[in-house]
């Protein structure tokens, strides 16, 4: 029996439509409505109009969370992109032991955020941690890392770069291997050194991979949560409270469901705007490259 396209189509997509409608679209609309309510997530909410958004603008703790998130993202994304470019370039060759090197770089990627954070809690322990032991050997005094308000956010950056580096490397390795070999040969014949050829021939060809990585890492950096929850819980003295961690506190510790939804929507809009800006700049730059 040959079903019509209509019948087959709707029967094939109906489970998906029902599930994504219920757990994708309904919550989206609901969250939008919640952001105009005062709602403790237990009793019925009260409509308060734009008050949550107005409060957001004047909330010093929210500004602090935005500040921390921006600093984190501005350091994490460039370090991760440049680091993975260099590591991918180093790994893109046929030598003995290359599989071992690649596995070493990729394994943190499949390690869960919770496990990563637990391992770094131990490595960066101020009293008995391995990193302080290393610093001690070269004559540097013990550092507080996650317990020092001046160092906590940068310690989070170091930990998450370790966790994400393999992702960037996979993207760049795939892109490097699509660079046509004759281009590099031509550059060599023209007297170009391998080093110059890398920066002048390969890196510009990697522009689409770089654009994708910058956008993807930024989106993920702006949504940082797990690692903060397991290591610093936003402390010490709010130095690592990022936007999603603040959202979590508002929703599940202070039961301000409406306010938390307003934070979530502010984050959503910020992510959309930043992604559009990055795409526009990225496209313009790559057009300029090819001209």
């Amino acid at each position, binding site marked *: 029996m040959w079903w019509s396209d209509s019948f087959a189509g709707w029967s094939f997509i109906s489970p998906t439509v029902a599930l994504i409608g219920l757990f994708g679209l309904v919550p989206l609309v609901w969250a939008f409505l919640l952001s105009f309510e005062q709602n403790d997530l237990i009793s019925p909410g009260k409509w308060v109009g734009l008050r949550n958004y107005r409060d957001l603008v004047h909330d010093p703790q929210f500004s602090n969370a935005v500040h921390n998130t921006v600093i984190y993202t501005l350091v994490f994304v460039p370090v991760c992109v440049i680091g993975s470019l260099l590591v991918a370039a180093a790994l893109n060759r046929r030598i003995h032991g290359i599989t071992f090197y690649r596995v070493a770089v990729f394994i943190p990627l499949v390690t*869960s955020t919770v496990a990563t954070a637990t391992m770094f809690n131990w490595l960066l322990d101020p009293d008995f941690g391995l990193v302080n032991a290393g610093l001690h050997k070269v004559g540097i005094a013990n550092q507080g890392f996650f317990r020092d308000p001046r160092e906590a956010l940068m310690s989070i950056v170091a930990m998450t770069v370790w966790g994400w580096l393999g992702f960037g490397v996979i993207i760049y390795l795939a892109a490097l291997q699509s660079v046509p070999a004759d281009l590099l040969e031509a550059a060599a014949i023209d007297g170009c050194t391998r080093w110059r050829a890398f920066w002048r021939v390969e890196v510009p060809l990697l522009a689409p991979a770089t654009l994708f990585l910058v956008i993807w890492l930024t989106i993920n950096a702006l949504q940082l949560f797990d690692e903060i929850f397991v290591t610093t819980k936003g402390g010490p003295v709010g130095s690592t409270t990022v936007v999603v961690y603040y959202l979590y506190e508002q929703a599940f510790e202070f039961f301000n469901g409406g306010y938390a939804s307003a934070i979530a929507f502010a984050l959503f809009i910020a992510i959309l705007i930043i992604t559009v800006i990055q795409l526009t700049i990225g496209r313009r730059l790559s057009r300029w490259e090819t001209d």
Partner: protein
Amino acid sequence: MTARNEESSMLLDPLPDGPTDAPRRRLPSPWHFVLLPLSLVMLTPFVWMVVTSVSTTEESRRFPPGLPHSIQWSNFVDVWTGSPFGHWLLNTAIVSVIVVISNLVLCSMAGYAFARLRFRGSNLVFILLLATLMVPFQVVLIPTLLIVKSFGLIDHLSALVVPNLVTAFGVFLMRQFFVSLPPDLEEAGRIDGASRLGVFTKILLPLMGPPLATLATLTFLDIWNDFLWPLVAIQSPQNMTMQLGLSTFQGEHLTAWPLLMAATLMSQLPVIVLFLAAQRVFVRSIASSGIK
């Protein structure tokens, strides 16, 4: 669309080895001087986790730290008996298996329909689907919790299963695959008298190995590593998944580092073993998405 397909077919043969440094040199490549220290830095957290997991508590409280005198396997036993570790492992396995299977079935059905069938409303539904793909999970977190609560599923394993049965990302991935297949395949099947379902299961399914492996890998990693959703949806220790259990375990044993490292090591072992066994599939899958 064609550019995307070329890109993904390139990724199907993941990371062939790079250009040879030079034709058969005697000396080992100087790149080892860069790559060896780099790998050691990347592996240090794991190595130190393994070392600590077999140390005694006293040994972990020395500065500067050192290697343990004898191997304390008892740490692993203590984790297993002192926490619902077995429950966490089993729960995570149950949730991952159900979610992976349901995603494979539902995403390939929907992906096929969106790629190949012309029916009223398909474009609109597909656009709505793509729209949900852009929404960060934190935005829908609270209403999703309220919906799950209204079904009475809070603190129940189903709370981790039901909202994840199908993902917009998976549908999109499978649609891209079906778009790249030649339509003649189905025509031939139709002329030979196969039914719609017969075409799908007997002709298309055998070709779907690589994209299904990708989808299974990504879904599995996603569920295995998920933290925020279990954190708000589950309260009882015996209903927790591995990651949530591990974080509560850490809360209860703040400085018992050998126990904590033994728990962390055991919690990651299944994924690491799977990764080492199926490295190519993992790498290809991650290259074609953006998961962590």
